[in-house]
C-alpha cells in the first residue's frame, strides 16, 4: 500500500523545456511573484529598516562608538537612548555602527563567495572528473560548519574583520557551487541545450548566455539565505573572540560583553539581541518567500 515518496520535478526545468533561448521572462515572473508574497515583503521591510538604521548611524547617533568618555553602565536617557556600556561608550552608537560592520561583511564576502562558487559549479557540471572531486569537496566544506572554518582561518591569518569576511566567502563557495552545478546539469539535458550543441553553439556561450540566466532563481534564494548566515557568522565569531577586534563595534561582541551585566542592566543585551534576530529573520523570510514562489510554479 505504501509507496515511496516521489519528489516533485524541478518546476524551473519544466517550464524551461521548450522555451529555447529567451529565459529572462521565466525568471522575472517567478521573482516578481516572489516579491509579492507577504512573507518576502515583511522580510524586505525588516531588512531595509535595519540596514537603513546602520547606514544612517552618524546621523542618528551624536556619539562615536569608540568614545569612552561617558559614565559607565548608565541607564536609558535622552542623551544615551540605550544607555552606556562598562567602558562608558554610548550603546546606541555601538549597535548602529555594529550593523554597518555586518552590512560590509555581507556585501563584500557574499558576491566573492558566489562568484567563486558559481564558477566552480559550472566547471564541475561540465567535466566528469572535476565534477566528482568538486562535489565531494563541496560536501566536505558544507559539513565543516562555519565556526570551525572561522577558527581555522583565524588561526592562519589572525582574528579580525578580514577573517570574518574570508570565512563568510568560503562558506558560500560550496553553497553556490552546489546549486549552480545541479541547475546547470539539469539545463544541459534539456532539448534546447542539446539543440544548441548540435547547431554548433560553443559551450561557454551556452553556459553564460542561456543556462546561467535560467538558473538564477535558486541563486537569488540562496543569496538571501547567505545574507542571513553572514550576520550569524559575524556575530558568532565576534562572540567567541576571533571576529571583529575590539574596540571596533560588533553586535556579537556587544552581546558577549552584556552577559556580565545581565543582572544590573538587562537593557544592555536586549538591543543587540533584537537587531541580530531581526536581521537574520528578515533575510530568512525573504528567502522563504522567494523559495515558495519558485516551488509553486
Amino acid at each position, binding site marked *: *500500500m*505504501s*509507496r*515511496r*515518496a*516521489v*519528489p*516533485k520535478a524541478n518546476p524551473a526545468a519544466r517550464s524551461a523545456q521548450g522555451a529555447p533561448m529567451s529565459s529572462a521572462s521565466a525568471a522575472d515572473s517567478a521573482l516578481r511573484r516572489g516579491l509579492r508574497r507577504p512573507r518576502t515583503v515583511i522580510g524586505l521591510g525588516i531588512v531595509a529598516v535595519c540596514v537603513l538604521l546602520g547606514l544612517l548611524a552618524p546621523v542618528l547617533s551624536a556619539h562615536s562608538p569608540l568614545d569612552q568618555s561617558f559614565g559607565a553602565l548608565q541607564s536609558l536617557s535622552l542623551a544615551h537612548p540605550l544607555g552606556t556600556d562598562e567602558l562608558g561608550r554610548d550603546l546606541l552608537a555601538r549597535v548602529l555602527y555594529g550593523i554597518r560592520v555586518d552590512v560590509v561583511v555581507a556585501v563584500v564576502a557574499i558576491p566573492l563567495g558566489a562568484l567563486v562558487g558559481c564558477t566552480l559549479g559550472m566547471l564541475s557540471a561540465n567535466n*566528469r572528473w572535476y*565534477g*566528482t572531486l568538486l*562535489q*565531494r*569537496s563541496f*560536501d*566536505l566544506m*558544507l*559539513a*565543516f*560548519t*562555519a*565556526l*570551525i572554518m572561522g*577558527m*581555522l582561518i*583565524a*588561526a*592562519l591569518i589572525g582574528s579580525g574583520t578580514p577573517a570574518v569576511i574570508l570565512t563568510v566567502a568560503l562558506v558560500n563557495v560550496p553553497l553556490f557551487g552546489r546549486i549552480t552545478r545541479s541547475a546547470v546539469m539539469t539545463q544541459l539535458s534539456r532539448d534546447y541545450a542539446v539543440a544548441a550543441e548540435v547547431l554548433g553553439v560553443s559551450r561557454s556561450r551556452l553556459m553564460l548566455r542561456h543556462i546561467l540566466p535560467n538558473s538564477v532563481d535558486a541563486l537569488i534564494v540562496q543569496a538571501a539565505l547567505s545574507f*542571513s548566515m553572514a550576520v*550569524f557568522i559575524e*556575530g*558568532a565569531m565576534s*562572540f*567567541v*573572540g*576571533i571576529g571583529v577586534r575590539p574596540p571596533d563595534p560588533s553586535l*556579537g561582541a556587544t*552581546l*558577549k560583553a*552584556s*552577559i556580565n551585566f*545581565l*543582572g544590573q542592566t*538587562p537593557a544592555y*543585551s536586549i538591543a543587540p*539581541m533584537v537587531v*541580530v*534576530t531581526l536581521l*537574520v*529573520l528578515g533575510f*530568512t*523570510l525573504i528567502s*522563504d518567500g522567494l523559495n515558495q514562489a519558485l516551488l509553486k510554479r
Partner: protein
Amino acid sequence: MLRYALRRIPSGLLILAVASVVIFLLLRATGGDPAAVKAGSDASPDTIAAIRVALGLDLPLPVQYFRWLTGLFTGDLGYSLVTGAPLASLIGNGLQATFVLTFAASVLAVCMGLVLGIVIAVSSGAGRSVLDGLASMMLAVPTYVSGVLLILVLSVTFNVLPVGGYRPILQDPQIAMQYLAMPALCLALPAAGVLARFLATSMRQVMDEDFVRTGMAKGLSQGRLLMRHVLPNALPPVFTVLGIQIGQMLGGAIVVEAIFAWPGIGSVLANATLARDYYLIQNLLLIAVSVFIVIQIVTDLAHAALDSRVRLEQPSP
C-alpha cells in the same frame, strides 16, 4: 546495501588523507614558535632551542608528518605544546563534555522537531502561519542570542537554573542535568526549527499523494493514516537533514560552550588556536573531518536503507 556502503568508503578515506596533509601544511605555514610559547616569556634562547628539539619541531616536515600519522594509529596523540598535557586525555575530556551536550541537544531537537513538524503539517490557516513563524524564529535566532535570553530569563530573573558551569553526568545525574538543561536547549532550538519545517513540507508533499486519498476513501482513521502511512514516507529525506543538523550542532557547540562555561571540545579548540598549539589543532581538525565524513556516510546509508532508488542509482557523472 553492503556494496553501497563499500562504494562510499574509499572516497571518504581519500578525503581524509588529503585533509590531513592540507591541515598539517597550513598550520606549519603560519609561522609562530610554539616552543617559545611553551617556554614562557622569560626563557633564554637556549632553553627555547632545547624545548624545540624536545618537541620534535626541528625535524624536517615530512618526518614530522609521518610521526604524527603513525602516532594516530598507535593511539599516541602526542602532548600539548603549551601545557604538556597528553592530547589524548585533553581531547578525550573535551569530547566527553561535548558529546553529552550534543547528544542531549539532538534528542531534544528530534522530539521538538517531530512534534512541531507534525502539528504544522496537519494545521491550516492562521494556526499554521503562526506555527510556521515559530519554527522560523527557532531556526533564525542565533545560539548566542537565545543563550543570553535563556540566562536572562531562567537564571537572572527566575533563579531556577545555574548560570553556567559543568558537572560530569555520571557523577551526580540530578544536579548535572540542571547544568545541562539550558545549553542543550539552546543548541537544540535551531535544529528543531529546521527539522520541523522540513518534516512539515515533506509530510504535506506525501499527503498530496494518491495513496493517501485512497486510504481516506477506504475509511482509515486520520491518526492511523498519519502515523502508519504518511509519516514513514515523509521521514527519509528528513534523515539527511538530521545528519547535517547534528554536524551543525558540533560547530554550534563552540558558541554554546562559551556562553555556558561548558568545557567541551569547542573551548579546547579555541585555546589551542590562540596558542598555536599545532599538535592539538591538527588532531582536533582531523577528528572533526572524520566525524563529519562518518556522519555523512551514516545518514546517506540511512537514506539509502529507506529509499531503494538511492541504493540502486549509478554513481553520478
